[in-house]
């Protein structure tokens, strides 16, 4: 089964992860821009980070036959940092036109501050201006309140919910989001957020429409194989194959295809620089 991983911070992962992900059937991965654990002190650090995830990271992924896409943004935590917030917002328009940028994200709330509200609204406007979907992070603390504020701001700026993915949902937030029209993301984590058995239960209770799952693997304790592991449990619990495929492939792919920049043929026929073309290595060029 093909899997699209719609949320993984591969910047922080090693090549063994790519290798294992490819073996487990992951053919495409989306890397949302987020914070790096350590605060950045200048806008230039963001430019380098964006350059890395539209350049070097894409190259790394393709060496393993995985297509790499991203969403770019000023993340909610650093939206509070006046050393960088305005400058990053000014930097974004140039980057949002790049190939492989399938949305604006992660945006949303961390501590639910006025600054976070302002930059969430401003970046929804950017998404509209660049005709891109938005990927919204929900806070670890006071999550329900954060989801409510997110939905309120979307309504205030009149951003279409079918172009929003609200991520890191739990049993408490599903009832708030399920009727909004937004796509719902669930991050399967070793300890926090969501785990495999709870996830399968949510899908049984609420169905598979507009539901996507991800590993949200990053620099913390996390596991980039959480989607294939959840697929195993879905099968054990008797979920139909087409429902599983809907959650790990059709839903995330059709959501990000709303960017108009996701080429499905390309994901079906990955070509990496190290692979053979017409029987010759591209690097060495055609030989007599």
């Amino acid at each position, binding site marked *: 089964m093909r899997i699209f991983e719609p949320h993984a911070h591969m910047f922080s992962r090693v090549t063994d992860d790519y290798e294992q992900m490819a073996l487990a059937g992951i053919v495409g991965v989306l890397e949302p821009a987020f914070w790096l654990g350590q605060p950045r002190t200048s806008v230039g650090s963001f430019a380098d980070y964006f350059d890395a995830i539209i350049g070097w990271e894409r190259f790394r992924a393709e060496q393993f036959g995985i297509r790499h896409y991203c969403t770019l943004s000023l993340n909610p935590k650093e939206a509070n940092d006046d050393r960088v917030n305005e400058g990053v917002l000014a930097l974004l328009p140039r980057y949002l036109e790049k190939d492989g940028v399938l949305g604006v994200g992660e945006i949303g709330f961390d501590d639910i501050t006025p600054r976070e509200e302002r930059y969430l609204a401003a970046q929804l406007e950017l998404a509209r201006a660049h005709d891109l979907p938005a990927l919204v992070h929900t806070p670890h603390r006071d999550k329900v309140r954060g989801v409510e504020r997110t939905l309120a701001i979307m309504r205030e700026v009149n951003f279409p919910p079918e172009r929003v993915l609200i991520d890191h949902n739990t049993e408490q937030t599903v009832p708030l989001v399920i009727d909004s029209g937004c796509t719902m993301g669930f991050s399967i984590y070793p300890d926090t957020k969501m785990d495999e058995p709870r996830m399968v239960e949510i899908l049984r209770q609420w169905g598979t429409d507009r539901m996507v799952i991800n590993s949200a693997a990053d620099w913390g304790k996390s596991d980039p194989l959480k989607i294939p592991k959840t697929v195993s449990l879905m099968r054990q619990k008797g979920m139909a194959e087409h429902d599983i495929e809907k959650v790990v492939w059709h839903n995330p792919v059709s959501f990000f295809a709303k960017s108009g920049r996701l080429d499905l043929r390309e994901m079906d026929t990955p070509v990496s620089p190290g692979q053979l073309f017409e029987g010759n290595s*591209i690097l060495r060029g055609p030989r007599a």
Partner: protein
Amino acid sequence: MTDAATHTLFDVALKKVIDTVGATGAAVYLGDPDRPLLRLAAAQGLRAADDAPWPVEKAWGKRSAGATAEPLTEVENDCTTLSVPLLLGEDEVGTVVVATGSRVFSGVDVDDLSLQCRALARALASEPLQALRDELARRIPSPAREWLEGGIAAAARGERDAILLAFPAMGRRIGREPLGSRSALVSHDMDADVPLRSWRLDDAGRVALLCAFAGDAEALARELYFAGDLRERCGALRGLAVLGRTPGAIDAVRDAIRSSATELFEAALADNPYACRFLPDDEFRHAVLKAAFVGLSIERLPGVEARADAELSRMLLSYVTEREVAGRSVPPDIWPVAALHPTPGLVGKLCGYLEHPAAAHRAAAATALGRIGDRRADPFLKDRLAREDDRTVRRILERVLS
């Protein structure tokens, strides 16, 4: 080029061909763009003793498409004509047919004719912008073509912003698949061609915009490099290969050479005359060594032979030693370059590689020994020739020994 200028070009070229080998006559045949046929474009002298006319068209079967000098060795002995391909890159755009009577030719004559025909193919080539348009027209569908033509027109009006917007969008607009061309771009004011063999569709589209730009395209390519993603950077570097005329954008090349992304490294160096023309000696040597190290054939660095020196040989052979100590294979294309400035012991090592199981190593070792010209290698070359069954290696061995 006007018709009159083309005919003058053919007349001069054919006269030279006839003089080179003492032929009775010669004719230029060019490929028909729409059908698998060669059409007579110009002729001089007699085709045969019976004064039979040159046919106006001839079949261009699969055997001759893509043929290089291969058929020529067979013609030497028994046929009355030589067919020399007109090669642009590795693409045969036509053939020069030489009526030879019963004369026997040397390998030197054949090499000479091949070079003359390459020069003629080059002289006939379109300007890079037109050549890229023709390549893309065959490969991308109509809406994408019209979008690109709009960008080219805006670039020709000097609209920088249109290029800045089109550059990142190129891949999703016209595709990222390999261009699949065997041809090469020719800038008539430069002596180095740019092969298209490893270009992708988006590379061709981006370079077309740069070529069309009514402004400082070199400075724009540099700017686009530093603002670009991986694919845009590759496109900017390939643009510099075609239109770079000053060292003003060499810092983009330096940045790419430092990269570990082989795709970017390749675009900076392989088939890229700009990098090879403007990198200082020490940086060029390190670039050659890194190419060998990452598995990029050093043959693909234009001018590597002209710029090779004793220090480069030392560096390459030290790399060879390091590989051999670790029990690893060595890229064969190192040998002909190292042979330009041989180090002690190289002849002996190359004689050993004449017996390598891989034909590429035997061919490279034979070529290298031919360059060194040390007679002590002759018994080993002859010994190998007696047992060699690879045609290409045989031809090289024969030439080295003649």
